[in-house]
């Protein structure tokens, strides 16, 4: 049975369309990042970058490297779209994209993570036709799972009291657009926030099977386009909607592009492959999928609300789930001199970095370590303690302390175990 499934072959057309669309959209993303001045503003201007665990060595790139990464990304994206050495161009695009992503943790986005995983899957399972213009069905299944899990986890993440019972954060976010013509008058209505919350959760949870089932597919894809266009218009989510509108087509029948092509038309040049090597690499792609399926579940290991403490939140496709704002101020004490003073992180960080730091405990910790190291280097003999006053409001509730103000964060290590210095979140309903 397994052998039969492994040897079953399907049309490669939908994979090719996915690859072309992703390649072109990546090219647009790279060009857009440069055109908007974000290379300078986000990568080069900050004097300090928050690093990903284990990737401190990435550091701040010099200007030539930063721009080169985007040139390489843009070039390899176009090559990927064109099907030039598909595996190789996907690999180069992956390296450039991941490098850019790893420069600063505060710029983490779920869709960057998704694209990194998708490109990795492209490297392992290149979306190109094999000698018979077809591919093994398992390759299509891998890519479908890769795309589908974004929706499923986004839907599961919405099944929380804030989203389902209090219609937050949509109640806040939709009301911001109450000035829109025609629709605007409804966007400040609480019932609409509830309807949108429930509809959003239902959409995420049901769209994958609905796209796979032929009878519901047209409605489901119309919903995909409508949902992503509306969210793209209402919220600053950049290229994400366009990537998802393109990626969702992988859930169509594998030969769907041929309906718009002349009979016998060739979508892409077939490539001879080594079946054994392909299966081995497919196994690695499977492992990558299993990892992606397991990572979001780690949030269950941390007590309390993930929306509050954020432990286990990254790499979980927890998309647009919370409206949080905070203010962080560090209190520094030099044990050797007894001197105490305050440090405003905004003095060193960019506005965006400071904003992201203000609600995320691991960033608060990382900056505390940086502060201690910097001050001890500046003042030989100093023994720096760093405490923090971090006040955070979730969905408009009264602000409360996120971090125990008595804990010397300079002595705390980051890790996967629950952080005891994160205080309990609010239990009262939002206002």
């Amino acid at each position: 049975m397994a052998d039969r499934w492994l040897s079953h072959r399907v049309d490669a057309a939908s994979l090719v369309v996915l690859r072309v669309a992703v390649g072109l959209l990546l090219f647009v993303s790279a060009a857009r990042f440069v055109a908007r001045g974000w290379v300078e503003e986000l990568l080069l201007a900050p004097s300090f970058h928050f690093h990903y665990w284990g990737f401190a060595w990435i550091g701040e790139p010099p200007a030539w490297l930063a721009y080169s990464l985007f040139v390489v990304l843009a070039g390899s994206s176009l090559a990927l779209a064109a099907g030039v050495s598909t595996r190789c161009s996907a690999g180069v695009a992956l390296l450039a994209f991941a490098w850019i992503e790893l420069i600063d943790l505060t710029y983490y986005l779920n869709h960057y993570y998704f694209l990194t995983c998708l490109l990795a899957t492209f490297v392992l399972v290149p979306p190109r036709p094999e000698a018979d213009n077809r591919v093994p069905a398992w390759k299509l299944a891998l890519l479908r799972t890769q795309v589908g899990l974004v929706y499923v986890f986004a839907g599961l993440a919405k099944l929380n009291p804030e989203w389902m019972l209090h219609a937050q954060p949509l109640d806040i976010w939709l009301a911001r657009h109450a000035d829109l013509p025609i629709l605007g008058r409804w966007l400040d209505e609480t019932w609409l926030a509830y309807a949108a919350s429930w509809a959003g959760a239902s959409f995420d949870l049901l769209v994958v099977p609905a796209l796979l089932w032929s009878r519901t597919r047209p409605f489901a894809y119309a919903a995909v386009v409508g949902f992503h266009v509306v969210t793209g218009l209402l919220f600053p989510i950049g290229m994400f909607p366009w990537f998802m509108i393109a990626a969702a087509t992988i859930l169509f029948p594998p030969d769907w592009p041929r309906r718009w092509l002349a009979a016998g038309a060739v979508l892409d040049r077939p490539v001879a492959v080594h079946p054994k090597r392909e299966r081995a690499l497919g196994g690695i792609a499977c492992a990558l999928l299993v990892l992606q399926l397991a990572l979001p579940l780690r949030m269950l290991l941390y007590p309390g609300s993930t929306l509050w403490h954020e432990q286990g939140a990254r790499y979980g496709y927890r998309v647009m789930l919370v409206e949080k704002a905070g203010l962080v101020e560090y209190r520094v004490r030099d044990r050797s001199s007894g001197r105490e003073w305050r440090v405003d992180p905004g003095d060193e960080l960019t506005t965006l970095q400071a904003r992201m730091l203000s609600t995320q405990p691991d960033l608060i910790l990382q900056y505390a370590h940086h502060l201690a190291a910097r001050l001890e280097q500046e003042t030989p003999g100093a023994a720096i303690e760093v405490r923090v006053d971090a006040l955070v409001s979730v969905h408009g509730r009264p602000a409360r302390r996120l971090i125990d103000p008595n804990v010397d964060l300079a002595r705390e290590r980051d890790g996967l175990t629950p952080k005891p210095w994160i205080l309990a979140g609010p239990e009262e309903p939002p206002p």
Partner: protein
Amino acid sequence: MSRTRWFGVLGIGAVAIGLALGCPETQIDHRGEVLDHVGQAVLVDLEQAHADAQALRGSIASLCAAPDATGLDASQAAWMQLRGPWKRILALPFGPLVDDGFDTAIDFWPARPSSIDGGWLSGASSQAELDALGVASKGMPAIEYLLWDPIGGDAAVLASLTGTDGPQRCAYVELLASDVELQLERLDAAWRGAGGFADQLAQAGDSEAFPTVALAIDQLLNAMIAGLHDLEDPKLRKPLGATIGAPQPELLESRFSDRSLQDARDALAGFAQAYLGTQAAPGLTLVVAEKSPAVDEQVRDALAAAEVALADVPEPLRTSIVDAPMQVEAAADAVHELRTILTAQVASLLGVTVSLSDNDGD
């Protein structure tokens, strides 16, 4: 299409039309109104500031024509008078004030005596020559430095204006006053009239600067928070010694005239004006109270507490940072509390954090 499907489509259409036409509008969006009120309040202050700057230029011209104690008093009073509206304007650091650099062009502080002395010693005698100098050599702090002497008093100032270098110093102060007036005139022009910043604010949602009302509210709130930060940190905490553990009077704003505390109070008044507005033209309070009366009450209480704490600091701040540091610290803490409520609760309540991200969200 089957009959059932036709009925389905008609049913959905009927529901949609019913929703669009039949349901009453229960919420009124007051944000545009608030933005208009805030813009109008700034225009009033700009008009006042411009008039005060004209008066300052006139009084300095009279002083330089015949330097005497009366003329000096009049010039000092005119400078003091201008500070009020200017500090209220500066409480909302956004729009052309910041984008076009008027904030530092008019009010770069803490004053750097060496740069100001370098200015008049350079012999700059025209607007073009003044334009070539850095912001540290000009603006209101430079005028203050040349009109006050905390050690020698007015006698020393008059001596400096009538001594060998007197004419050159006086010509430079006149030039500075003229420049401040010019800068305020330009700032006023950037705010006023069709297409001006006040108009852009009032037309938010349909204006070039603010394609959405939400964007304008975000900028307003962030400006109010930035203004409070400037009040808490550079005006109070840093001179108190927050960074080195000892008072730093050289970091005080308006340290020559000892107007530092009044500057701080005026800055808070500028915030209060934007938040509370007036009975007829309410400020941001209107929007916040609609979302959460409790949060609005918290802001009002924190604002009142900050006003009281600032009033409790003995004059002048130059000596209070040494003799009454607890009161200065209490004032800074009170402003911090107000800033915290704005940054955390009000921002969260209004969804301000979802936008203004330089990068794409999720």
